[in-house]
């Protein structure tokens, strides 16, 4: 059964009761929340995702609810709980949905010790993975959202999973987070993209999420071989430039963007090393999204 088959009423019922068991790629998350905006967000953005039954195994247990304090009456807030413990500072209640997305990202970053988890976006074409690690503001998510509507299969916008033994690359194929101006850019350049209503005034400004393309969701169990590691940088007015980067410094940049490299030690070192070896590394500067798409087409075709 998929979210679309469930309908909003039953979805709300699950969330408010024993929890919705949501499958995202290799993970199952048990999500509980009485908050209406959370149910609406899931209904719209996870439409194509599978729902597991209540006796299934789940990797993460998340709950979004108001804190148990008097504040709920005059300035309602929301907490994100993982395994019944609050892991973040509370946010204003209207940010409940983005908080679910951030919380699920936190779970993957902190509770998946059996994969190397990279803070990066990833997409697949012809069985090969394109990994885009970048600090916030580098335009990683914008590129990722656009590529997902331009012949690339979305693996993840935020957390790349690398198998420690085989180096197969995968991701949960969850919604892509877009901020401020990139919301407009994606609306204009990808007419088929479905975006949630932007939520203003978060710490990051306005935030919206993009529904992953149906095909990417249906194929989210398919892994990819390492292909390219591209470090993107968005610079207004800059002309497009794709420059090969030495594997050693690419490797160092890659591990700086890994969530659990330090915790895993030797295994993570060799896993990241093989990943850098098997991939072609580049630095990429861009300002126009259409030019960037053409550049990635050429990269995929080996031109």
């Amino acid at each position, binding site marked *: 059964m998929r979210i679309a088959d469930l309908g909003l009423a039953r979805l709300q019922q699950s969330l408010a009761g024993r929890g919705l068991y949501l499958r995202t790629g290799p993970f199952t998350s048990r999500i509980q929340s009485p908050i209406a905006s959370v149910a609406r967000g899931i209904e719209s953005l996870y439409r194509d995702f599978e729902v597991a039954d209540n006796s299934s195994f789940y990797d993460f247990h998340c709950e979004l609810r108001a804190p148990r304090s008097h504040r709920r009456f005059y300035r309602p807030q929301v907490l994100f709980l993982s395994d019944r413990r609050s892991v973040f500072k509370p946010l204003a209640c209207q940010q409940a949905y983005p908080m679910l997305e951030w919380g699920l990202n936190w779970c993957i970053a902190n509770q998946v010790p059996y994969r190397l988890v990279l803070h990066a976006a990833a997409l697949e074409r012809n069985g090969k993975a394109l990994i885009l690690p970048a600090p916030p503001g580098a335009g990683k998510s914008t590129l990722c959202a656009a590529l997902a509507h331009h012949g690339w299969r979305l693996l993840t916008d935020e957390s790349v999973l690398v198998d420690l033994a085989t180096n197969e690359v995968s991701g949960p194929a969850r919604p892509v987070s877009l901020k401020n101006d990139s919301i407009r850019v994606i609306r204009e350049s990808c007419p088929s993209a479905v975006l949630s209503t932007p939520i203003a005034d978060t710490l990051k400004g306005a935030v919206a999420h993009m529904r992953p393309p149906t095909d990417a969701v249906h194929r989210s169990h398919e892994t990819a071989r390492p292909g390219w590691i591209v470090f993107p940088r968005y610079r207004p007015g800059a002309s497009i430039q794709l420059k090969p980067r*030495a*594997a*050693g*410094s*690419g*490797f*160092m940049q890659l*591990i700086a963007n890994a969530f659990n490299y*330090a915790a895993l*030690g*030797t295994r993570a*070192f*060799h896993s990241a*090393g093989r990943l*850098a*070896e098997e991939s072609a590394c580049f630095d990429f500067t861009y300002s126009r999204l259409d030019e960037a798409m053409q550049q990635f087409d050429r990269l995929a075709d080996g031109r």
Partner: protein
Amino acid sequence: MSRRRWQRTDGLQQRTLGQECVVFHPGAGTTHLLTPAAAALMDCLTAGVAMDEAELARQLGLPADGTDVELGRWLSSLQSADLIRGRH
């Protein structure tokens, strides 16, 4: 030239990536990108065998005079990263 004998730290993990070399120190949890010179120096040091500086210079093909300053610099930077150890 100093008479210290140098030895590579036990248990280091090393990979060659293209022209470059990366080393992981499992004890300290640190990762280093080595310059070609430092990588060549590390290659001279076999695990468990100490080597003196004159022998190192010879193996690296450095002339015996006037290069100890540079060799000393490489050795001290590798030592401060705990990748090698020097003993008198």
